């Protein structure tokens, strides 16, 4: 029962985070409105959450994005899923610890994967439109991706130290010889 209550609370908090993302973050100055807080939440769930929670929350967050925005359904579900599943694979294959470097690399990887997934799907769907040009050749894409990488890295570094100082989730387990 406690587990389901905990999960329900996490779902509600995720919804409020998404509302904050759509309303407050989107109204900020040109660079800061590129921050993707739900993606950062998913990265934390990948590293610290229970098994498969990253998939459930990627579905939930992507679903809300798809419902609200008018892009083709389910572009955000697919983009978030690709980002979290590949980041989880990266984490399990290459990062056996929970150091700050693993946090930063996984964040950068998830940010790049999410943006690439979205743009690729968008490009394929709109391939017959004359105004559609490949995003890889556009300066705006690389500029905004650069800003997102920097901002997300800064946020994840701050969150890492907050989690480290306030919880024991990132502390190493040391074996004592008796």
């Amino acid at each position: 029962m406690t587990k389901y209550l905990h999960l329900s609370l996490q779902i509600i908090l995720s919804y409020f985070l998404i509302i904050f993302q759509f309303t407050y973050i989107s109204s900020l100055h040109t660079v800061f409105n590129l921050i993707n807080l739900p993606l950062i939440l998913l990265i934390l769930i990948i590293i610290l959450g229970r098994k498969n929670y990253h998939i459930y929350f990627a579905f939930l967050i992507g679903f809300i994005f798809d419902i609200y925005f008018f892009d083709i359904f389910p572009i955000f579900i697919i983009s978030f899923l690709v980002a979290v599943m590949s980041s989880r694979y990266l984490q399990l294959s290459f990062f056996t610890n929970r150091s700050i470097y693993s946090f930063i690399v996984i964040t950068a990887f998830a940010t790049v994967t999410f943006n690439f997934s979205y743009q690729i799907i968008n490009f394929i769907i709109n391939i017959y439109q004359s105004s559609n040009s490949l995003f890889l050749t556009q300066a705006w894409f690389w500029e905004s991706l650069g800003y997102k990488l920097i901002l997300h890295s800064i946020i994840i570094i701050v969150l890492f130290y907050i989690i480290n100082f306030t919880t024991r989730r990132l502390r190493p387990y040391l074996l004592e010889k008796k």
Partner: protein
Amino acid sequence: MQKTFNKKKIYFVLAIIILLVFLYYLNALKPIEKVIVSGINKGGEVFYNLGSNWRSSFEGSDEEKKLKANNERLEKEVDKLLAEKAKWEEVERENNKLRNYLNFFEDNEYSKVMARVVASDNLLSQEVNQSNIYLNKGSDDGLREGMAVINEEGILVGKILSLHDNSAQVCLSINEDCKFAARFSNQNEALGIVQGSLGLTISMNLIPQEYNISVGDLVLSSGLEKDIPPGIIIGEVNSISKQSNDIWQEATIEPLYNLNELDFLAVVIP
């Protein structure tokens, strides 16, 4: 530790996605959509303003210089418009007389639906300034795709692109995807299409050379679009590009609204 992708997991994920796509396009997710959108609308009424105010203060110093220059320009404009007003009052009096004779029904009043800006979709938009905005009113409030959205001064801000039951996506007039049928204030025929340019201005291309346009001319909606009434101000001509050996000339049009002050808007119901 699990290092390989679990095939079962992937099939499960794909099955869920396909199911959601079916349900979405069968409109079975409408009740959930309404709840999600109304929550975002409520949040937007609180948070969007906070973010806009922070952005305004951040961009304040540049804005002050712009406002001063604008002020001086507008004072000159007011003098010019007062003279024109007198002329148009006479024309209106004549018009009224003629309408009475011919027994026309004159209705200049459009109904409007007031709405609040609650979000924008700049997270993944093509250009940084190419984002669309979202209003907290939708098809349940009588809105339709293609309707004009104006600010408190009656200036055209954009038009509705897509709708939910209780929210609407609006493209701003400076957005490249936003086009309007327009004419110049001193010309009676519709001259062409204005289109957003670089997320900063509006441009009108392919204007025949024989039309005399000058900097400062107002650009208005022509009324050729089904849901946009004529005479709504789109912007003011900022610069004209014309070569003597060209058939066409181009005009750059400055929008007359402030991007940082898009809070309450009105949707014009024709």
